[in-house]
Structures are given as structure tokens and as C-alpha cells.
């Protein structure tokens, strides 16, 4: 069997790699959140509120130019926050916006979106006409998606996960949800490690799983085993929580303090949003 075919049939490798990439990404996010940068220096509560305002503005505006302006701000904030440009662009442009671009391509053409023709071409005997409404709609859609994704990624990269969870509580999200989210986040590492160990053990014994039915059984057995083992640990986890002084309300060592700089930032963010909305009404 060729290496390429082996690679294609080996589902273990992609599964582990995607899981590890996910967790590695999360760790890297914390790394950026710990850097001394502009967004990192802001109070997480006011920063989250300002980003929610930016997000609502991005999905409400109807002009690609104005949404693109917001993307420009994102880019500047990323640089000021010492996020590597390449990492930021890969995280924000490569996945969802690229998928959205492919998804929206057919709407460029008159067969899907009729209207004023912008250009036409002949390919393999077929006549393609790109229309103005089709082009404008596609550009608006992709710019909107790219900006929304950038805002969320920037917030996530520049805020420690524990602080984001604390912000949820401050914003009024019920304790049951916040507590479950914070515990779930810790379990993810445990689950991923368990799964990785099991897969490594399987691979060291049987090598490549070459048949899809065998692969499906391995995945299902892994999930069942993971569930079984972790439910047995549930009681131990609770006892460990109690031993660390858990009283039912999650606590953070860091207490949030909003300074004048944070309030100025929030005011600036709201002025930017209001300005973009105002321009959007005029255009």
C-alpha cells in the first residue's frame, strides 16, 4: 500500500492531530493573553462589552467599506497587543471566511443573482455573467464574516480563559453555566490526554487502521471508555474541589479593577460604533 493511501486511511493520525492542534491553540491563546500588550492591559469586563458592541456593529452594518474599517481597527489592535500578524491572519482568514468565500461564489453570477452585469466570460462553452448585486452581496458577506471572526478571535487571544469565564458571571450568566463551563474546560485536557494515550497504544500495537468499519469501532469504543472512566472520577473531582475550599461560587485570585483608561477605551469603542452606524445611515 502506498504511503499516500496509508495516510488517507489512517483516521487515528488526523483525529489526534486535530485534537492536539485544538489544545495547543488554546495554550497559545493563553500565551498571548499573558503578553504585555494594549488589549491585555484592559479590564476584561469592559473589553468584553466593547467587543460585543463591535460585533453587533459588524453584523448590523450594510456597507462592506464600513465593516472593512472595523476590520482595520481589529488589525491595529492586534499589532498593538503584540499578536503576530501571520498568526492573526491565519486564525481569522483561513477557515470560516475562506469557506464562506467558496460558499458565496455562485451568487456572483446572474443565474443566481440577476442584475446589472459587471463582467462576462466564456469558459468551456458556458457564458458566465457576474452581476453588481451578486458581487456587492458576496463582498459584504465575506468582509462581515472575516471581521466578526477577527473580533471574537482577538478577544479570545488577549483575555485569559479564566477571566473570560469570570466575565460571564459578572454579565449575569447563571452560576450553574459558568461553573460547568470552567470545569468542562479542565476536563477537555483530561479527555484529550486519555484519548491520545489510548490511540497511541492502539497505533503501537496494530499500526494503521485500514478499514473504515474497524476505525468506527475504535472511535466508538474510545468514546464509551472515556465516558465510563470519567464518570467514575466525578466523585473524586468533587472531593478535590472541596479540599481546595470550594463553596459553590467559583473565585478568581485576580480581582477586576476598572481604571480611567478602561472607561476611556469603552467610550472610544462606543463612539467608533456610533460613528460607523451614523456613516451607515448616510451611505
Amino acid at each position, binding site marked *: 500500500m502506498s504511503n499516500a493511501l496509508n495516510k488517507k486511511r489512517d*483516521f487515528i493520525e488526523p483525529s489526534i492531530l486535530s485534537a492536539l492542534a485544538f489544545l495547543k491553540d488554546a495554550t497559545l491563546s493563553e500565551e498571548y493573553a499573558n503578553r504585555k500588550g494594549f488589549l491585555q492591559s484592559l479590564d476584561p469586563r469592559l473589553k468584553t462589552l466593547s467587543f460585543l458592541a463591535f460585533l453587533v456593529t*459588524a453584523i448590523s452594518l450594510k456597507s462592506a467599506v464600513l465593516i472593512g474599517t472595523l476590520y482595520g481597527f481589529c488589525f491595529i489592535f492586534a499589532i498593538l497587543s503584540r499578536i503576530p500578524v501571520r498568526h492573526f491572519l491565519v486564525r481569522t482568514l483561513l477557515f470560516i471566511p475562506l469557506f464562506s468565500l467558496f460558499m458565496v461564489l455562485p*451568487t456572483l453570477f446572474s443565474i443566481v443573482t440577476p442584475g446589472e452585469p459587471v463582467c462576462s466570460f466564456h469558459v468551456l462553452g458556458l457564458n458566465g455573467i457576474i452581476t453588481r448585486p451578486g458581487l456587492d452581496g458576496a463582498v459584504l458577506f465575506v468582509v462581515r464574516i472575516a471581521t466578526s471572526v477577527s473580533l471574537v478571535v482577538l478577544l479570545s487571544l488577549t483575555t485569559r480563559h479564566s477571566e473570560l469565564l469570570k466575565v460571564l458571571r459578572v454579565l449575569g450568566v447563571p452560576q450553574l453555566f459558568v461553573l460547568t463551563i470552567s470545569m468542562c474546560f479542565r476536563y477537555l485536557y483530561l479527555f484529550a490526554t486519555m484519548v491520545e494515550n489510548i490511540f497511541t497504544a492502539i497505533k503501537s500495537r496494530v499500526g494503521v487502521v485500514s478499514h473504515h468499519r474497524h476505525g468506527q469501532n475504535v472511535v466508538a469504543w474510545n468514546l464509551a471508555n472515556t465516558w465510563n472512566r470519567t464518570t467514575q472520577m466525578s466523585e473524586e473531582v*468533587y472531593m478535590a474541589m472541596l479540599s481546595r475550599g470550594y463553596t459553590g461560587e467559583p473565585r478568581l485570585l485576580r480581582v477586576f479593577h476598572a481604571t480611567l483608561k478602561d472607561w476611556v477605551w469603552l467610550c472610544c469603542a462606543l463612539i467608533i460604533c456610533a460613528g460607523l452606524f451614523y456613516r451607515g445611515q448616510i451611505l
Partner: protein
Amino acid sequence: MHIPDGYLSPATCGLFGAVMIPIWTVASKAVRKTLSVRQVPYLAIGAAFSFVIMMFNVPLPGGSSGHAVGGVLVAILIGPWAACIAVTVALVIQALLFGDGGITALGANCFNMAFVLPFVGYYVYKLISLNSPPGSSRRIIAAGAGAYAGICLAALCAGIEFGLQPLLYHTANGQALYSPYGLNVAVPAMVIGHLLVFGWVEVIVTALVVKYLQKQNSVFFEGDRL
């Protein structure tokens, strides 16, 4: 099936957020009634489990692969209300901490994957399994059928949400402002893909995990869930 930010209009996002608030409230009350603080780790396990299921690529005939959502499986294991919270938590973590899925579209995503999916799947499972013994193969079939029904109906909901956008939100010259395809494209695109491919991934994962758990510890299938 994860809807990113920008695919749905703010009004649609607000509507689904408003729809989900009472559902989350009822789910919290239902879970609090039967789940003590001691069992909170159990709920977190359900959420992490749902998250992990979404990370697994299940091999399909022909060398391709897909991933399941796992909402029905979690509902069978911990009950539909607890599953609603667990899947919501998984979606919040994906959206907020990993930037995968939408924050403004969280209400719509939760409606599809944390409400429609687990509830439809769970009750189809209950209907087919009836009072069969915890270790019976009828429960495996019921779990598979529930998973298939749940994911396909959730996909239909997502298709309708996408398909309504160009009808409701467009400029005077017909330019779509959000998801650009109407119901005639969005609904078949979502439903056919799930009927033919992703529905079967959900069936395989749910039925096989139920089968293995029956062998390892059939106590998971005894009695009613939340």
C-alpha cells in the same frame, strides 16, 4: 452545523437568543431539582464529552471522514435537560474560547444543537426503546434512530434559518445582506447532506457507543433521565 457570526441578521440572532432564555431557565431548574452541587462535575463531564465527540473524525466508506455532534448520545446518558446545558456549554466554549462558531449566533446554534437535537433524539429513543431491558439491542437501534432524527431535524432548522435571511433581509436591488441562499437552496443543502452523510455519522457514533456502554456498564440505561 455551527452557524458563524454574520450568517444571520441581528434580529434573527436576537429572536433565537430570546427563545433560548426560557429554555435555559427551565433546563437550569430541572437540573438543579435533581442534581446536587456534588454532581456538577457530572454535568461538566457531559459538556466535555459533547465537545470531544465533535473533535473525533469518524471514518466513512471511500476514505473520507466526518464528525458527530453527540447531542442525542449525551441526552440518552444524562437526560435531555442536562444535555441542553451540556451542549450549550460545549458551544459557548467553542465560540468564546476557541473562536469556532458564533457569539451572536449562539442562540440559534443552541436552539438547533442544544434543544432540537437532544430533545427530538431523546424522545425518539424513548419511543422506540419503550421499557426494553438496559442491555437489549432494541436500545441500540432506538439510539441510532434517535440520533438520525435529531440531527436531520436540527439540520432542517438550520436550513430554514439560513433560507429565511435573503427573503427578510435584502437591499432594494435584491442584494442579500446575510446568508445569500433562499429556502429552495439552503434547506436541501443542509438536509440532504445530513440525510446522506452526517446523519449516518451521528447514527454510527451514537449506536456504537451505546452498544459498548451496555457491555461495560448498563446502569447508564436504567430509569428515566432528567
